[in-house]
């Protein structure tokens, strides 16, 4: 579904990612792990059109999406939930979700999606009139993911969904991601929390110094000595 081929990208002409390649199959969860500053987030930003591609190519359903602006990717079925949530703080939860369906014009359809989100996350429904920046961290993360789902994406990209959350909430978030995958959405997830992520993923890539250095099924990487040493604290 998504193919990243030898991509080089960075900020203001200074490359951060030198050579990254990965492949995502439809219906799977693919994890991208690696230490801080290894280039995971930059790679995701390049995929979603926020950073320029200096070399290489990105193919989505066989079509190049290198340099396509992020707002156009939404209509193509790609949705990203950025690190730090980036909710519209002064808007209500409900309005945040509605903004997630900005590319949809059919009001009935929007309402239908909203209801299905509420069914999935009753707590978000309870809070729908509340201003987004008054929610707790976990709730905000839920809303951020829910907003990402409102465009009914085929590919959902999650950047550090568990960052700064209490362990109990992390489990909740991961269960939610699993359910999203089960509903047929392809998921790319970037996480510091490597063990839980690898356990959940069908396939995973390890990034180091701006390059994808290792790949394999989640289970295989979990067993890999090198990975254990470097990222799993073993």
């Amino acid at each position: 579904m998504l193919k990243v081929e030898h991509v080089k990208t960075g900020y203001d002409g200074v490359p951060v990612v030198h050579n990254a390649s990965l492949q995502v199959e439809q219906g799977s969860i693919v994890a991208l792990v690696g230490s801080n500053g290894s280039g995971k987030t930059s790679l995701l930003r390049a995929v979603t059109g926020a950073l320029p591609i200096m070399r290489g190519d990105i193919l989505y359903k066989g079509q190049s999406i290198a340099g396509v602006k992020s707002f156009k990717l939404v209509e193509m079925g790609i949705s990203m939930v950025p690190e730090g949530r980036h909710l519209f703080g002064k808007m209500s939860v409900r309005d945040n979700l509605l903004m997630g369906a900005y590319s949809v014009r059919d009001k009935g359809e929007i309402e239908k999606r909203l209801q299905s989100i509420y069914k999935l996350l009753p707590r978000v429904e309870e809070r729908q009139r509340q201003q987004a920046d008054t929610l707790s961290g976990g709730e905000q993360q839920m809303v951020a993911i829910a907003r990402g789902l409102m465009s009914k994406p085929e590919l959902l990209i999650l950047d550090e969904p568990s960052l700064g959350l209490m362990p109990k909430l992390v489990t909740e978030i991961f269960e939610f991601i699993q359910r999203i995958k089960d509903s047929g959405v392809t998921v790319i997830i970037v996480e510091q929390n490597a063990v839980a992520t690898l356990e959940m993923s069908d396939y995973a890539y390890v990034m180091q110094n701006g390059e994808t250095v290792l790949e394999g099924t989640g289970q295989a990487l979990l067993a890999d000595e090198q990975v254990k040493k470097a990222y799993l604290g073993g």
Partner: protein
Amino acid sequence: MSVFLQGLYEGIINGSILALIAMGIALVWGVMNILSFSQGEFLMLGMFVSYYANRLLGLDPIVAMPLSALVLFVLGIIIYKLIIARALRGPILSQRLITFALSMVLVYSAQLFFGAEYKTLSNPVKFSGTIDLGFLTIAKQKLVPFLLALIVAGLLFWFLRYTRMGKAIQATSMDRYAAGLVGINPDRAYTISFALASAVAGAAGCALTYYYYLYPNVGATFQLWGFIAVAMGGFGSITGAFLSGLLMGIADTLTGLYVNTAIKYIGVCVVFLVAVSFRPKGIFGK
């Protein structure tokens, strides 16, 4: 008593023009964090549209108003695409100062194309005359800026709160990056905001020609008071800008009437200082 009422009424009318300028500045600042130094010049261009519509076609400013708003809206789009959008990619200082440079270009261009002399509408204006209520003399033409300010404030409120584009603009102002991720074209939201602000100034310029003279530098003074209204209302707050504009008009006229005309602007500044010392971020600042 009737002098007081007249003064209060005229103060609101005079404040309406400031409110209109200020709402445009507040919109641009609120959405894209740019100080729109060229708002006064858009007002000036609106006045020239009104002037030429009157001189060449014999139109009343109120009839020329939609035309002027449209002309300035289109000009706003062109200026945004050609200049502002590019400056936004540059360092923060050039973002902040680009509209300043723009205002100078507009003033000098106006001088070149329209001449530097003072002008007033040359053909008779139909929507004029006074209504004498005994306790209040209402000049019909001066109702125009007030009604316009009310309508613009209402329309902006409605547009930003209840329309798809308006919500997209709000979302972009809160988080440009996230707006892109949900499928909003942030550049489009910026363009529309900038063009809307300039259209408001264009309409305000028409209303102003009913009683004010025009010349290429006319925007500067209104611009200055507009900025003060924005600071007093709370940067980015359109409601705040609207109310502060009116309040400043009232302070201006009543100080002139009851204290001394020579210090009427001190009266306005005192109101401003009192407002910001109690609420440093402005009356509606967050």
